């Protein structure tokens, strides 16, 4: 099938303003948008700039707005989009070049929630593992699937308003550790995420859940954190 691919272009060295470039490409319905971009870069215009690494939905580097919806280019098939495909950078972060945005504000927010395992108590008597039951593991299973692609955070109206808002990805990371029975810093983290630019800024718009390429129930996770501030129940 013949696909008309419109790509957002911006080169800060020459362009005053962004524009679209349009390419006509022969594609298979089973091609992914990433294949189209690779084709453009390889054969039509080598200056096209975008991030990608794994090409299999694992690294989270090729999040972009495809026909208006935040998705991973490597997980979006041409047949689900039709003959007209428009690709823009994700919203709410400064564009550096073409489809590449500055991810620093996103990762700064991520770091704020202390996204690492904290447990200073001595090892169990046998000196081996800190054990966890399957139920305890299940409690935070969904949020372990996050690949930090930023599809959620850059689809969130509260984040567009201000990148001080922690954003869904950072809250998912907080959820991952707060509800881990082996972690001991829940109180520290909940204090961080309950501040002015945290939890209460989520208006339950569900954009994040719809955007997540890993099908994480993002809004539900945020809801559980809100509930935690009321009940204090970590189980």
């Amino acid at each position, binding site marked *: 099938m013949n696909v008309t691919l419109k790509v957002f272009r911006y080169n800060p060295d020459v362009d005053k303003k962004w524009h679209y470039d349009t390419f006509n490409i022969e594609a298979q319905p089973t091609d992914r948008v990433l294949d189209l971009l690779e084709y453009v870069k390889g054969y039509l215009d080598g200056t096209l700039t975008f991030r990608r690494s794994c090409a299999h939905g694992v690294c989270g580097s090729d999040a972009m707005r495809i026909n208006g919806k935040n998705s991973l280019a490597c997980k979006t098939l041409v047949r689900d989009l039709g003959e007209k495909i428009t690709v823009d950078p994700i919203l709410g972060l400064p564009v550096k070049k073409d489809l590449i945005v500055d991810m620093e504000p996103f990762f700064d927010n991520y770091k704020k929630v202390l996204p690492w395992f904290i447990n200073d108590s001595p090892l169990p008597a046998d000196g081996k593992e800190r054990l966890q039951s399957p139920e305890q593991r299940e409690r935070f299973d969904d949020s372990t699937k996050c690949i930090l692609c930023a599809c959620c955070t850059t689809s969130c*109206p509260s984040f567009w308003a201000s990148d001080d808002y922690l954003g869904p990805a950072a809250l998912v990371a907080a959820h991952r550790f707060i509800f881990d*029975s082996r972690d001991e810093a829940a*109180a520290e983290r909940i204090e961080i995420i*309950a*501040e002015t630019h945290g939890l209460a800024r989520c208006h339950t718009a569900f954009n994040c859940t719809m955007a997540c390429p890993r099908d994480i129930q993002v809004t539900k996770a945020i809801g559980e954190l*809100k509930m935690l*501030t*009321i009940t*204090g*129940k970590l189980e």
Partner: protein
Amino acid sequence: MKSRNLPLNKRGFNFEMIMWIFTRLSALAMYTLLLIGFIGALLMGAREQMNFADVMRWAFMPNPSHVINTNIPDIAPWTALFWQLVASALLLVATAHGVHGLVVIADDYIVTSNGRKIVRLISMLMMASTSLIGLYILWTF
């Protein structure tokens, strides 16, 4: 194993979260109060003249000066203390709920912490003055 509960002072239960919860609960409270006004009107013989405007008056402004316009046979019962209290409760809850809604919207546009403080201050003044004027009307006319 240690208890997996966070004590109240360690739950991040701060002003922001209290206001977040308040907005949810006040919405429920408003539904309850609206139903009280509406059911009250039905009990007092309002079965014949139902239209949107009348229902709004019973539900949102259950006081004699509004109910009189809705062709209710007898408005005397509406002057009772009970209805004054219902109307006042609705006024206070709705004002606080609405003003907090405005604050939340303003927070999308005013993102510096000083700016937000000013917005909160102005909103509290707005809330207090609206509530006072409303109460004055409800209890003196």
